[in-house]
């Protein structure tokens, strides 16, 4: 599932309230080709993400996805919600592995709104979960929103 080519991104800060949620999106099932495509796009050629024999020799059941792949997918969904240039900080913690055939669900919620001088900042909590119900990434962002 991908977004439409006609979708738009906000330029100006958007209006957000506490407990507002990002549109939930599921991506997958992810394939080894998805990992290889991200390797080529990003420059991360760690063979543990594309070389099945090497991964198995290292004790893994198979290759697994780069954390930056789902961190990046989540980042674009956050940007689509709040506008890419309104994001002040974005931080992610990798908490689980992503395997071939995983379907990932991306979500986010406004935890609170704070004043910073004349600006309003939303503190947003985000996460990525697999179809096994496992959280594979947790994230936080601070975002300039409409005052």
């Amino acid at each position, binding site marked *: *599932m*991908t*977004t*439409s*080519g006609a*979708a*738009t*991104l906000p*330029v*100006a800060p958007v209006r957000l309230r506490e407990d507002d949620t990002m549109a939930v999106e599921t*991506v997958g099932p992810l394939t080894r080709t*998805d990992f290889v*495509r*991200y390797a*080529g*796009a*990003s*420059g*991360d*050629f*760690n063979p*543990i993400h594309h070389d099945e024999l090497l991964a198995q020799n*290292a*004790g893994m059941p198979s290759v697994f996805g*780069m*954390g*930056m*792949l789902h*961190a*990046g*997918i989540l*980042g*674009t*969904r*956050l*940007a*689509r919600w709040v506008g*890419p*240039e309104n*994001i*002040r*900080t*974005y*931080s*992610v*913690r*990798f908490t689980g592995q992503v395997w071939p055939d995983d379907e990932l669900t991306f979500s986010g919620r406004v935890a609170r709104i704070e004043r910073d001088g004349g600006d309003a900042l939303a503190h947003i909590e985000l996460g990525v979960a697999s179809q096994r119900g496992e959280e594979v990434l947790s994230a936080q962002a601070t975002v300039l929103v409409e005052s």
Partner: protein
Amino acid sequence: MVAHSVEGKELGTVRVPVESSKFAELARALHDDDLVWHDPSAAAAVGFDHVPAQPTATVVVDHWRPDGALGHAAALGLDLTRVLHGEAAWEFLEPIRLGDELTATTTVAGVSSREGKRGGEMTLITLETTFVNQRGNLALRRQDTLIETGPRA
């Protein structure tokens, strides 16, 4: 095991052109086919006077490092079969736009160790990369935490 003495060590500087073909590839790799991420006319149609960068787009810096994404870990003497990416954080200070030329400098911000959950000592290495644009302004500060797990028993 990495010595604490590498704290503050500079791991090199590279120049990174911000290009549309890499932006298009990244958007496709991230399952987001919005043309705004790489096409100036699509960006203009929604009100941008430039093509904006995806939050994690500066990952492309790895293409310009002689040893790629693993170069820093290797340069620090980490055992690459035991290295995990634990955390990443971005602080956005000035928008990064298609056509920018960035200078990225990475330093070792911190080294610490602690007992791992499954026994064995884990080493946490925090790398900080600054991206300065062609106007001389600090546009982005990125931190990465690498974890070297203890040797397998």
